[in-house]
């Protein structure tokens, strides 16, 4: 039974190796319910691996993961609770838009047909159109519609806007915000660009080099990070250049925005990995 206090994602020491390649290591997270989580990291940081582990298409090598209190992908009931749109929003090229809705209706007990039809209508998709003939943006919207009308408690979107032009990105994210509010679902969406997520997410996870660099609610993170020019104040930790972390209020410090914050952590990880290699 999922309650409002059940964390959406809870992992402990989670790791995934492919042969000798470590895709994700020592990942410990606690994501409360009701958040829109931005998962940010450079290409190859392990974002897709973490999302695959969360919806259960990938099994962990080490550690534990619970999604909405259960093992991911373990049962039909668990699958019904998690909606997933994979990278590049795969759809059946030979099936029409209407066929995709019928697929959703046949395979999901909590399917919301009015919602699906409403979305298709508002997006201006022709139900008879074959999915193979849709544009990248339309395909992403169709995949999102199928995932949303499933009425899951958690929606996972892997790089949903990567293939969209800036205008479509903006429309996609605004539309996402609208129906997240309408459905009351938790959302995890990933991107290699923090700028995409900044406007929508209220919880941030920064992933780099297969490890979690930073995780928490956006407001909390902004409250403890500052921009300080010059010497490092006592009790503060320098992340990268003038971005520092300090729980205490620092006189004269400037606030930091989310994009700079994420960039500081990703840069620090990149520098450390170069330093480690040298």
């Amino acid at each position, binding site marked *: 039974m999922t309650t409002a206090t059940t964390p959406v994602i809870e992992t402990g020491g989670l790791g995934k190796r492919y042969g000798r390649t470590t895709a994700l290591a020592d990942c410990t997270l606690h994501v409360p319910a009701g958040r829109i989580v931005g998962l940010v990291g450079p290409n190859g940081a392990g974002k897709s691996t973490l999302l*695959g582990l969360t*919806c259960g*298409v*990938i*099994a962990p090598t080490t550690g534990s993961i619970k999604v909405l209190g259960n093992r991911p992908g373990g*049962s*039909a*009931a668990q*699958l*019904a609770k*998690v*909606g*997933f749109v*994979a990278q*590049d929003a*795969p*759809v*059946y*090229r*030979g*099936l029409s838009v209407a*066929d995709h809705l*019928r*697929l*959703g209706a*046949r*395979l*999901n*007990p*909590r399917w919301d047909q009015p919602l699906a039809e409403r979305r298709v209508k508002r997006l201006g998709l022709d139900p008879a159109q074959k999915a193979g003939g849709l544009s990248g943006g339309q395909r992403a919207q169709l*995949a999102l519609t*199928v*995932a949303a009308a*499933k009425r899951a408690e958690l929606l996972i979107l892997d790089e949903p806007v990567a293939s969209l032009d800036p205008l479509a990105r903006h429309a996609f994210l605004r539309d996402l915000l609208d129906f997240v509010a309408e459905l009351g679902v938790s959302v995890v969406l990933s991107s290699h660009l923090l700028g995409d997520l900044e406007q929508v997410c209220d919880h941030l996870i920064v992933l780099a080099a297969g490890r979690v660099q930073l995780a928490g609610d956006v407001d909390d993170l902004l409250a403890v990070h500052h921009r300080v020019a010059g010497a490092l104040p006592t009790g503060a930790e320098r992340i990268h250049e003038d971005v520092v972390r300090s729980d205490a209020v620092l006189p004269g410090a400037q606030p930091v925005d989310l994009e700079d914050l994420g960039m500081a952590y990703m840069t620090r990880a990149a520098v450390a990995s170069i330093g480690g290699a040298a």
Partner: protein
Amino acid sequence: MIWLTWRQFRTQALVVAAALAAIAIYLVYLGSRIRDDYASVLGCQPSDCATARHAFDESYTGPLSIVGLLLIAVPAVIGIFWGAPLIARELEERTDRLVWNQSVTRTRWLATKLVLLTLAGAAVTGLFSLLLTWNASRYDQFIGDRFGAVNFASRNVVPLGYAAFAFVLGTVVGLVARRTLVAMALTLAVFAIVQLLVPTVVREHLMAPVTTTVAFDEDAMSRSDAFGINDRGATIVGYTMAGTWSLTDDAKVLNADGTPYTLQQAKACEKGSQAENTACMAGQNLHFSYTYQPAGRYWPFQWIELSAYLGVTLLLAAFGFWWIRHRSS
């Protein structure tokens, strides 16, 4: 799941149904011709009978062999074009990410697809086999080579086993190989090897053969291809007892006391005409050893082979379920 299975499968189903309908029309036509001709062979005037029989054999051995080979190819086609792409194409186009994240477990997804499409494949092959078996029944009765490699594999129940095996083989190979073309090629290769090895190496060992002693007489001579003799002894080549599966290519012809038949003995029988010679030799009380599968084992062989194929199919399916649950990601 049933709807989705049908929706993704209906084009292939229509293609196969159309092909089957065309074959069925031809087979019904061929079947009625065989029946008419057979009636005239039975009602032949004694003087023309040999010619009538020969003509009957000549006219239908070709067409029936071709249709038989076609039926043997049907399971291969099912394995390659239905089985191999079933999962491989989903993995290639990444739609597994879509469909395996609906509220249906992979196990149920695979179970539905496997059961429905295996049944469809078996139904198509079974229908074809039923038509051909009916079609060729007079011919088989007349020629009596029911254990022949092509004849055995293209009649009655064994084609059902081949179809189920080929389809599940293709599916599982596709699941593991993850590439449609690779899976199609591998399926063809494996299926072809199995279909070559089973009739040539495996089938005859499914039941222990029977060895008996056959008297060398006119009847034995008429059921063999050749008889040869030299100073080391005499050999009968290609003898086949009516309706049986001969496992003896050639056998030494022996005297009643087990000693080889000699040239001198044969000389004693050089009378004049071939018929007289043979009658004389038959009077010399000769025999040879014959190893075979009796005619009455035709159905046990059909059932054993069907069961063996279905058993292997189940093992393959079990492996597929294990793989899709634990290894496929």
